[in-house]
């Protein structure tokens, strides 16, 4: 799992719910981007593109993330308190 601490104090956890789906989705993005460039360059390109769109959806980053990665086989969780004793599975 991956845990993220953001500058506004939010704490998120990303968890794989379907590894095959995630693997296929990532590979298909790499395929879609063609034969030019390394895998890392493709990751960087997509990361940058995603970041630009985060900028346009700052008011609802969670919803945007969930929509973009709806079919990636990943689940997003958010801590509801600073004690990290209460978590929500964020869904569309």
């Amino acid at each position, binding site marked *: 799992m991956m845990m993220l601490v953001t500058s506004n104090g939010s704490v*998120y956890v990303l968890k794989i719910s379907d590894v095959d789906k995630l693997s296929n989705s990532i590979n298909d993005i790499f395929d879609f981007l063609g034969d030019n460039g390394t895998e890392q360059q493709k990751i960087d390109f997509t990361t940058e593109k995603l970041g630009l769109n985060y900028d346009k959806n700052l008011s609802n980053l969670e919803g945007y*993330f969930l929509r973009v990665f709806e079919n990636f086989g990943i689940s997003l969780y958010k801590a509801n308190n600073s004690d990290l004793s209460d978590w929500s599975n964020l869904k569309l």
Partner: protein
Amino acid sequence: MIRNFTSRILAVLFFIFFCFVSCEKDEVEPVVEESFFPRLKGAAITSKDLSSNPLAYRRLMDYLEKPIAKSTIGIELDTTFIRFIETDSYKSYTFKIKQDSLDRSRTLKNFVLTYVNDTIQIQQLVDYPVLESGALDMENIVSVRLFGDELLNPFTAKCSSGGPSYYQYEYQYCYPVYCSISGLHGPGEPCTIDGVQRGYTNCVTRWQTVFVDQGSCESITISDGNPSGGGGGANTPSDDDDNIIIIPANPTDPENPCPNNSLSEGGGDCMIVNDEPEDQLPDPVINELNNLIKKDTSFVKIKDVVNLMKTKTTDSVEYSLSLYKDLVGGEEFTKRRTTQLVRHKSLTSGYVNIGSFDFCNIHTHPLGTHGMFSFQDIVTLKTMHDSLN
């Protein structure tokens, strides 16, 4: 191949979605997809409870008043245990057909009576072959439609000249099976440090599509069977979705009952199917997080780590910490890879420990970066998963 095709379409949509958002519109209209499968409510009932559905009750009473021999196929139903399934468009009653022990050891025989919109009646004989293990063979379900208004009396069919057409789509339902040894672990993830036991994905045939065609002679034509095989003179499903219902494959046996609002999986387990109870079930990931954090008394102190990281998000660099599993005195514990937070070189560069026991990474996205996971994070998560023992 279908999955590959679908995935490629998704990849294209992924980038179209990007372009759609970044190039042309400031706002994205949310796309809400409704589940393909109907929402169900279910219960175990008796024949008396059937009286709430007058048509079904009358048909059943008519059947029960006759000597069994009058049923041209000599079927006797167990009416003491009926599985009732209700959706927005249909109500379905599944009976176990009485069998001797030898016959039951080979096949579980059910009779399924379905009413679409409280009017159209569908009768099906459904056989579930029994595997050597005693579980039901959910991949080779045999479903035969009976025509006619009277129950289990196919010779009264009004419109059987064309014969039943066979057209069945089976849908597999797959779900993660988490193992609960020292925390909850999803598919592919090791349950124990030696990696012998892992969570996995279980798939069972859960749904079948039935094409409901009222036809010109006011009877119904139901298609079930093999999509590639087809039946002679068969009606085939049109594009009219209103004529298609999706019903669960729900093997029913009073000796192995499933609780209300659940379906039998054929192997002795039951799966809760409707949304309401599912929401009430403990989320395994939340359980895992709670286990990780509440049991975290000596080695990691995740809350302290997170609180410390919160103070670091105003720095112009990213911080991270990787966690791994270790055996201490025969018991599995979570430990830090480094005693201190790892300070990286820039706002967006980070380093994640990848290894057989490295299962978790905590990191910051500092002020000026995005308050959400990056695509790099997602790929790294996948890499971490692949490297786990």
